[in-house]
């Protein structure tokens, strides 16, 4: 088995609390709340009227008008976040073998606004021929990594892994494998999802959305906030990174996947998939539970998720679960779907770099079933060398990744 080490050399983020790494980090440290009344859809009929939109994202600041016409919102987010990550990493595509650079992206909904637009045209005009000929090409979610690959001229695989809200972790995990197998030198990897009327409608109908703010682990949590964004990371083979003098921000030690095989929309109350994923991640990473300093929770703010995730942590980490704080940045961002775990991976790298653990905001009342230290409301200065980041999804798709301070 290969002993190649896998490191992170660049970060990019487009989120409801800010676009750009420094903007995002500053907002997260101060506990900014990105959940606000929605602008992009008419919420009159919905029980929930809030969500997380990327309000500072103006496509014209990033793309020409012709490009915008060919890029769905998810692709726009992904490309912009990837530009940041590539710039920080200093990855010069002109000096790389393009076949050894991969793009791997996760998503939940892909480019749903394209389909929403097409169907609205069909209903409003009763004439499908009014749908612009170029529109359907933008819909398949595989266009998201393809658009990123086109942006940088990469020729390695342009993978799309749409495993819903765990997709970002799946994408990072696969790039980790491709590097360990020696198939690629580096990857632009992460997740992207736009605000989707489908997702907002669906989660409203499942009564899973909050009416005001997202309160993970709080006794009175009432649901998630549908949100949007993208997180992209440059994942790279260590020697390749060192050779070109890249900034080594953290090490991706490993990951694990599991599946509840229980219900489509409800986690297994016993947490089977999450337990399996975390155990595999620790084994794959070669670390003991006691080495985990901090856990980035899936932490959606729904009754079931937070309770089950607490159980998973206690089952796998044992007594150490009470020593390793666990917080949910979804309290600030809402649930950015397939982008969530990628943005959370970006946050984890920043937490390691800054020795600051981000808070769970909106926390008021302790829940005896979620009795771990969730870093309530205020960021905490603490030594963070090793972190676990969990992401769970519809269909019981469960994942955990392990990131650590790079130590040569």
């Amino acid at each position, binding site marked *: *088995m290969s002993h190649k080490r896998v490191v992170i050399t660049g970060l990019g983020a487009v989120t409801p609390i800010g676009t750009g790494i420094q903007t995002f980090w500053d907002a997260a440290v101060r506990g900014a709340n990105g959940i606000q009344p929605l602008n992009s859809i008419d919420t009159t009929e919905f029980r929930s009227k809030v969500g997380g939109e990327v309000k500072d994202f103006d496509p014209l600041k990033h793309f020409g008008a012709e490009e915008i016409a060919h890029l769905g919102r998810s692709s726009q987010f992904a490309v912009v976040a990837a530009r940041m990550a590539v710039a920080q990493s200093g990855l010069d595509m002109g000096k790389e073998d393009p076949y050894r650079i991969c793009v791997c992206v996760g998503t*939940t909904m892909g480019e749903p606004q394209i389909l929403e637009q097409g*169907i609205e045209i069909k209903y409003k005009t009763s004439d499908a021929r009014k749908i612009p000929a170029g529109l359907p090409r933008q819909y398949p979610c595989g266009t998201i990594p*393809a658009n990123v690959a086109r942006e940088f*001229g990469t*020729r390695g*695989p342009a993978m799309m892994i749409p495993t819903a809200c765990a997709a970002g972790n799946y994408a990072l995990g696969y790039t980790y494998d491709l590097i360990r197998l020696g198939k690629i030198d580096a990857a632009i990897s992460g997740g992207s999802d736009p605000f989707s009327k489908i997702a907002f409608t669906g989660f409203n109908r499942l009564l899973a959305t909050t009416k005001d703010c997202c309160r993970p682990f709080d006794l009175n949590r009432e649901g998630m906030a549908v949100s949007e964004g993208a997180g992209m990371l440059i994942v790279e083979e260590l020697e390749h990174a060192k050779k070109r003098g890249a900034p080594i921000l953290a090490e991706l030690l490993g990951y694990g996947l599991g599946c509840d095989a229980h219900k489509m929309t409800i986690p297994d109350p016993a947490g089977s998939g999450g337990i399996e994923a975390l155990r595999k991640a620790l084994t794959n990473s070669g670390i003991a539970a006691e080495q985990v300093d901090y856990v980035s929770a899936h932490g959606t703010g729904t009754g079931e998720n937070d309770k089950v995730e607490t159980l998973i942590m206690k089952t796998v980490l044992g007594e150490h679960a009470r020593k390793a704080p666990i917080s949910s940045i979804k309290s600030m961002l809402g649930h950015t779907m397939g982008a969530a775990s990628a943005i959370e991976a970006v946050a984890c790298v920043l937490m390691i770099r800054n020795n600051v653990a981000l808070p769970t905001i909106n926390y008021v009342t302790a829940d005896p079933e979620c009795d771990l230290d969730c870093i309530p409301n205020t960021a905490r200065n603490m030594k963070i060398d090793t972190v676990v980041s969990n992401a769970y999804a519809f*269909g*019981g*798709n469960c994942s955990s990744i392990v990131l650590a301070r790079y130590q040569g």
Partner: protein
Amino acid sequence: MKKVVITKAEVLSSLGKAMQALHANLPLDPPTATTVQDFEFHKFDSPVACFKVKDVDPVEILGKKGLRTKDWSTKLLLSALEIGLKDLLDGAEEKSRPGICVGTAFGSVDSIGNFLSESIVSGVNNVNPQAFANTVINACTSYANVRFVARALSCTVATGFNASLDAMIYAHDHLQRGYLDWIVAGGLEEVSYYSLLGMQRTGVLSSRGESRPFCTGSDGFVAGEGCALFVLETEEHARARGATPIAEIVGACSAFDPSDSGAASGESARYAFEEACRVAQITPDRLGFVAASANGVPALDEMEARLLTSLCPSVPVTAYKRYLGECYGAAAALSTACALSDMENRRVTGVGAGCHARGKFNLVTTSLQGHNSEFAAVNAFSCDGNCGSIIFKRL
């Protein structure tokens, strides 16, 4: 490198149910497409040619329980698993069951489109919340995990036309890394109003409703649907459980062509094909045959014809999309199933007469019988830029 073998294949296609349908129908003349016009919420002005899965009744295969809220894609996947792999899945203890990895371009775009249509027609507070779960692209795979209590892996890959080829490569890589011993991998795609409408608007459908890969007169493809699944496992695992390998995956490569014209430039397609051969440690002329990606879209067919003319002009080439249509995310898996059928039956399926072929390569028109192939390649080259090749060795 671990040897990864295929020990079982199952398929639902427009040629019929199970691998036997391929064994029986591939030697026959290529079929003509059927047509569809009416769907649940929408209707086309005139019939649209397509290749629909036939001889599959999910209720008969799966029973009524739990099917009410499942869409056609999910029913196809569950049916394929039930027909071909249920004994194998049920025979293993829960903790030892294989993972599942499925490639699809769209998931169930019918579910997504209908959910939206219903919200417009009936109002957002009247859509069925259970239908929402079907709108995520990984829904079909996850339903399969739930039904067969397969906890080891649930993964969906969505790289357009290449999705099932990339799903097989993902599974192969997962096995190479030693995470699991076996994975059910393959592809799935449905024909729906929304997908057909999108293809119509994009102008990629054949105006005559004919699926004629590599033919100079062709102006597009005919959409198809289907599901093909394979049990991929390490040779050691297959041996330990007494399974007989059908084929070994000896080479594979996935690449991307970033040029504006997608794969039409041919550079990345050539790389993927050559790299797959290099990994397989064979030169292209050792291939018994090539299952081409060609689907009747002139630019893509022309590109692949150039590649084959250049790299293996004398190797027999077939194009199963002549029989099955363009099944998008399921296409490479269906081509793999057909290729395995051809290898097993010592033949190479012909694409039929009456075609003035592009390029100067060995396009098989009349099926070759008694053709013994040690190696076969399956290509997937798409207009979205994804390019991949996978090479099988018959065992």
